[in-house]
C-alpha cells in the first residue's frame, strides 16, 4: 500500500508544516510554498509517498492549518 499526496493550491498559503514533516520529499520555493524535491513538472500534481513516510504524511494532512493537503492511498 502506498499513497499520493495532493496539494490544493487554491488553499495553500505556504505555512510550511508539510515541508518540515516531509523534508525528504519537499522543500520550499523562493516564495515559501512547498516544492517536491525530485519531480519534473509533469509528475508534480500528485506527490508519491513511500510507506516509511506515510505516518508523517498523515500528520501533515492533519496539521495543515489551511487544510490544503489530502492523501489518497493507492493499491500498488
Amino acid at each position, binding site marked *: 500500500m502506498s499513497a499520493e499526496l495532493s496539494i490544493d*493550491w*487554491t488553499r*495553500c498559503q505556504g505555512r510550511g508544516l508539510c515541508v518540515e514533516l516531509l523534508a525528504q520529499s519537499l522543500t520550499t*520555493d523562493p516564495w515559501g*510554498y512547498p*516544492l517536491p524535491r525530485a519531480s519534473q*513538472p509533469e509528475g508534480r500534481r500528485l506527490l508519491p509517498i513511500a510507506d516509511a513516510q506515510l505516518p508523517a504524511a498523515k500528520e501533515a494532512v492533519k496539521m495543515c492549518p489551511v487544510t490544503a493537503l*489530502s492523501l489518497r492511498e493507492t493499491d500498488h
Partner: protein
Amino acid sequence: MTTTSIPTAPLGTLDEPRLLAAGPQAQLTEHLAAFGPLPDASNDREILHEWELSSLAGRGGAAFPTSEKIAAVLRSVARTGRAPVVIGNGSEGEPLSHKDRMLLTHAPHLILDGMALVARIIGANERFLVAEAVDHPSLKSAMAERRDTSIELHASDDHFLAGQASAILSSLSGGPSIPQNLREHLSERGLDGAPTLLLNVETLAHMALIARYSARWFRAAGTNKDPGSRLLTVHDQGQYQVVEVHGGCSLDTALDQLGINPHSAQAVLVGGFHGTWTTDLSARLVTDITQPSNTRSIAAGAGVIEVLGHGSCPLVRTAEIVTYLAKSSAGQCGPCVHGLPTLARDMHALASLSEDAQLPERIARLTNLVSGRGACHHPDATARLALSSLEVFDQELQAHLNGTCLHDAENQ
C-alpha cells in the same frame, strides 16, 4: 480522402464549408434546408457508434477524444445511478479566439442540435449552454424558434480563465468564474456532484453533422491521423478571419489560401496565448502531437493562429503576452501569483535589451518552478509559451543579450 499512402497535396481550407453550410446567421428554415432534420431516437445507438468511429477530438483546446469523454460519463452514470449533466462551452476567454462566437452567431442551431442529441443519448435532463452575454441574442432567437426550453443559457464572465472547465462549474454553482481545485474528473463528479459532460460548442456542432452524415463523411476531410475539419481564427496585421480547414492542414497552404503570403511571416504563434511559436511554416496543424508522424506537426489547440511579420520583434510580442497572462491569474495559487509576474518582468527585461546574461537561465528556472503547481494549467501554459520563445528565437535572444534587436525599433 487520404486513406492511401499515396502522397497527396498539402491540405488547407475546405472547398465547401461544413459548419457554415447553412449560410450566415442561419435561422431554423435555412438550417433545416441545408442539413435536414435531426435523426430520431431510434438511431441513438448508431449515432454513439458513429461518434466513436469519427475519432472526433474536442475543439476547445485540450483535444480529448469526444467518444471517450462520453463513455466515461456513461460509466459513471451506470455506477452512481445519477442523471448526468450536459454543458456546452462557448465562452472563449482567449482574447485572440473568435471561432466559438462566430459559430454561436451563425450556426446556433447546429450547436443546439449537438446538445439535444448528446443529452438525449446519455439521458441528461439538465442542460446548460455557457456563452458570453453578447452572444445571447442569436442563441435566444434560435431557441425561441425551436420552442426549446430544455437548455438553460448561462452568461460567462469576460476574462481569460472564465472558459476553463472548473471555472464554468463554479460559475454555474453560483460561485466566482475562476478555476477550482477538482479532485475528481468532471465525468465522476461535476456539477452538484453529478456526472458531467462538458463539450466545446464547435465539438457539439461537429457531433450534429456526424450524427446526420456518418463518421465516414466526417473523415473524408482531414487526414487519417487528424480527421475532419476545424475552425481557425487567423490573425495577421491587426485583422482576423475565422476559417474552416482540414485536420492536419499545412500552415503555409492555409495562410496562402487566406491571402496571407507565407513569406511575409517571420513566425507564427499557434494555439493563442497558451500556445507555442513556430518558424516552420510547412508544419501541419494537428490534434495530437504525440502521434508519430513523418512530417513536422504542431498542436492546433483551440485553433488560434497569429502571424508575426518581419518588422516585429518576437521577444517583445512574447513579453506583452506573458504580461497579459500574469495579470490574468485568478490570484489563488501561490506559485502562479508570485511566479508569473516575476516571469513577466524578466521577459520584459529581455525584450527591452537589458543585457543581463543571467536572464535566460532565470527564465528557464522560473518556468520550471511554476509548472504543475496550480489548480489549473494557466502557469504551465504561460511557462511553455515563454520557453518556446527562447527556443525558437535563439538569434534574437543572443542579439538582445548583446544590446541589439534584429528587428527595427519602429514597430515596437
